[in-house]
């Protein structure tokens, strides 16, 4: 007969450890998101380059990254790159892998957001003799950002939920810590349940946050400095 006993004392004992691991998870997500947004924007702009070669290469890089599993990319960065003299900490590797992987997905979001800007806006910018840089910065991106928020937010939440994959390269994020606690105490119920609950709570909070950002984002008057 399987006994099903939930021990609150044990929960209180391990909670600080799991919460401190949650900080690692959140840090990886935060840094990964920032990198993913930068990478995504760069890819999206490269896909619109005047140079055919640049467009084609970017297309295949994005396709490659999207079509290979995140775990393979994580392993590659962590185990293969050192053979070329590049070795990074698990956290840095994780951030890089998440940033690159989700950057590829975000580039499609950004690309369609930019494509959604009316042709007339580009033409007016050109007629006013704005440079390409100013056109993107002042005219196109400020208008494109609002419609990009929901999809970008979803990808960031998805990224957050994929951080356990970083346990494969010994990053002490939540799941890894829970596993260690479990194996040390021969009790898995409480640590894994806590991890599940924390993921749920963070995801719900993040989803609500994104919803608020989208709703509050100004329809007019938003400009980039």
């Amino acid at each position: 007969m399987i006994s099903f006993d939930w021990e609150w004392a044990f929960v209180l004992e391990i909670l600080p450890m799991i919460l401190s691991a949650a900080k690692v998870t959140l840090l990886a997500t935060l840094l990964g998101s920032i990198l993913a947004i930068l990478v995504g924007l760069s890819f999206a702009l490269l896909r619109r380059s005047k140079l055919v070669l640049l467009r084609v290469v970017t297309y295949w890089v994005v396709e490659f990254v999207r079509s290979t599993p995140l775990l393979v990319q994580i392993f590659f960065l962590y185990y293969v790159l050192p053979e070329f003299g590049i070795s990074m900490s698990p956290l840095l590797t994780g951030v890089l892998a998440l940033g690159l992987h989700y950057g590829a997905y975000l580039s499609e979001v950004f690309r369609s957001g930019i494509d959604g800007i009316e042709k007339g806006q580009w033409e007016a910018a050109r007629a006013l003799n704005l440079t390409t840089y100013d056109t993107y910065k002042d005219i196109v991106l400020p208008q494109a950002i609002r419609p990009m928020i929901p999809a970008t937010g979803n990808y960031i939440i998805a990224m957050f939920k994929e951080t356990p994959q970083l346990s494969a390269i010994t990053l002490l994020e939540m799941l890894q810590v829970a596993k260690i606690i479990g194996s040390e105490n021969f009790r898995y119920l409480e640590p894994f349940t806590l991890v599940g609950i924390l993921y749920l709570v963070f995801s719900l909070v993040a989803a609500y946050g994104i919803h608020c950002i989208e709703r509050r984002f100004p329809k007019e008057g938003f400009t980039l400095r």
Partner: protein
Amino acid sequence: MKQPLIEFKNVEKRFGDTVIFRDFNFSVEEGEIVSIIGPSGSGKSTLLRILMTLEGIEGGVVRVAGKPLWHKETDKGLVLADEKHLHEMRNHLGMVFQHFNLFPHMTVKRNITEAPMRVQGKTEIEANKIADELLELVGLSDKADMYPNSLSGGQKQRVGIARALAMQPAILLLDEITSALDPELVEEVLDVIRNLALKHSFTMLLVTHEMYFAREISDRVCFFDQGAIVEEGEPERLFIHPNEERTKAFLKAYMSQ
């Protein structure tokens, strides 16, 4: 002989297999106001769009103020221009669009100050001064801090005109600027252009369906059909005594509407 401000020489323009212009010649003198009329699809707007560098050409040469617009003069003859040359050439031109194309996320004033600040490097104070003057000119001083979406079509287009004028172009291109407006809003926009024509010595090139306006304001009217100028001349002559059958048919069809 004085050189024309705008000159199309043997210009060829295609969209895929569709030929818009072949061996097209056309010129405009400095200070001249020229209206282009004709049926849709006759290449009227394309002419303006080529001048504004929104459309390239496949053959021939377009000159603005004596310099080739789409080409650079080199020892080996004309070569296709780079962006830097186009950027320089665009300083001569300003365009007002049929669908306004205002920047919806910017206030009316910012729509006008954007280019003077970014392109001409004017300070915000200088640019605002220009915007204030232009808004007064188009009668919209009270709308400076509003966003385009809260304006009527006629007001939007007046902002469009002010925005183009802010760059002080020598040539103003007006592409069916009243076509997207409700009939009762057409006059307020045309009044601004009348005013401009009266007080300033702009070179204006307008594509329009408002025949009475073309007749009233133009030094010369060109009737376009199928990528060619079928007939051109002083407005009174062209509207009252058109020579060509196609011009007569077009004007007749227009009058009966």
